[in-house]
């Protein structure tokens, strides 16, 4: 018989003891890399992602440049040691697809038309994967873009909702993602209330979709507040240090 873990217990708690609408503990930090123009680090439960942004910079090779706007290039990649079994470092089908998905989630937020003939590069590296790597990458990437001083309409925050044993849950972890019945990542520009990414894998009824979106929205606002704090923290720390020295 196939062994299936019990994902929701009698008390309605999830495998890691969370309530259905509860997110994992998370932390966002901006400006973690010195050599990149902008960078951010995000940790959510067991998932760890670091994102570096370069640009706008000169387009190489030259023919990819567009005459009227900047080109956004994204690369999502998982490090060899990010999963239990060593992952080959060459980009897999899944990584190539996620790179495209992340690019399309970020593109509507950026004023690309302000920098014609240039490229903006976003590199998302997954240090450790435990579910929700694409949403963590999007969240961290928008912080890194803002940190690089690139003009944005709004930050982009993302979270996944899913269905586990018939219950809608927020922020799936690795096990829930693997054995659950559905997974729906959502990315939003929270201040503008616009959705930039909506994927769904599994079967959701239309009521579940509505409820899931609402749950995702609430979680996204929490992520958004943390993003803003992370961006401001660095500058406030310098201010504190200076006023402390006087």
């Amino acid at each position: 018989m196939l062994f299936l873990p019990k994902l929701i217990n009698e008390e309605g708690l999830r495998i890691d003891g969370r309530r259905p609408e509860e997110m994992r503990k998370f932390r966002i930090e901006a400006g973690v890399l010195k050599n990149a123009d902008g960078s951010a680090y995000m940790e959510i439960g067991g998932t760890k992602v670091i994102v570096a942004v370069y640009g706008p910079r000169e387009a190489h090779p030259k023919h990819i440049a567009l005459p009227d706007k900047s080109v956004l290039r994204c690369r999502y990649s998982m490090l060899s040691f990010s999963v239990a079994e060593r992952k080959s470092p060459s980009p897999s089908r899944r990584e190539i697809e996620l790179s495209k998905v992340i690019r399309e989630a970020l593109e509507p937020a950026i004023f690309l038309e302000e920098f014609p003939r240039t490229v903006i590069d976003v590199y998302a590296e997954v240090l450790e994967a435990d579910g929700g790597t694409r949403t963590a990458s999007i969240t961290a990437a928008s912080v890194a873009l803002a940190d690089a001083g690139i003009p944005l309409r709004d930050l982009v925050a993302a979270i996944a909702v899913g269905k586990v044993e018939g219950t809608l849950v927020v922020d799936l972890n690795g096990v829930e993602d693997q054995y659950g019945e559905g997974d729906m990542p959502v990315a939003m520009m929270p201040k503008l209330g616009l959705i930039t990414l909506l994927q769904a894998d599994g079967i959701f009824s239309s009521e579940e979709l509505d409820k899931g979106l609402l749950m995702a929205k609430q979680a996204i606002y929490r992520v958004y507040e943390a993003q803003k704090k992370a961006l401001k923290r660095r500058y406030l720390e310098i201010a504190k240090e200076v006023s402390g020295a006087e």
Partner: protein
Amino acid sequence: MPIYVSNRQIIVPGEVIAEGNYNIDGDFYIYQRKFFSKIIGLVEVEGNNIKIIPLKGKYIPNIGDVVIGKVIDIGMTNWTIDINSPYQAILQVTEVFSKPTSVSRSALSEILNVGDLVVAKVIAFDFSRDPLLTIKEARLGKVTKGTLVEITPTRVPRVIGKKGSMIKMLKEILKVEIIVGKNGRILIISDDPERSSLAVLAIKKIEREAHISGLTDRVRNFIMNKLRG
């Protein structure tokens, strides 16, 4: 019609600055009659005037800017200059000599070689083509001595200060010559290596603490302490 920010507050992209009749200077956009910030920056509020000062960003050439560039390539009749920007600049031979001259390619490298630094002025730029530079005016030309410091281009106005107060102070108490390029490259010329390295430290301090008020006094105290010690 409210203002949603306080004076000298740090703002991030997507934050609402104000709603209604205000004069806003800087990187913002309007959506549903509200002013949103596009960038991470600092707001200065003075009555109805709001100014957004960017904290980070790349240098975008502007006609009339004095920049410090580095020669990266030599063409048939021009040099390609890196000006610390997403756009590479072009320096034509005609913008180097005032008289019409015919020079061969090898002669170009004798005038300016790869790796040389130049103080130049932007004479044309419109995003559709690379910016053009000139070194025909006074105080422009090849850099022969000095120390180069690179800072975030958006903090250059702080190095200059209000009506040049900061740079005047630096020049006076350190007795060094300072040439500030709008692209975030700053040249310090002095015969005393100690004074020029002190100037480098002072500029780095300005860059780091650009968003905190009372900067000129703090930098003055910093230099005075170092000079005494």
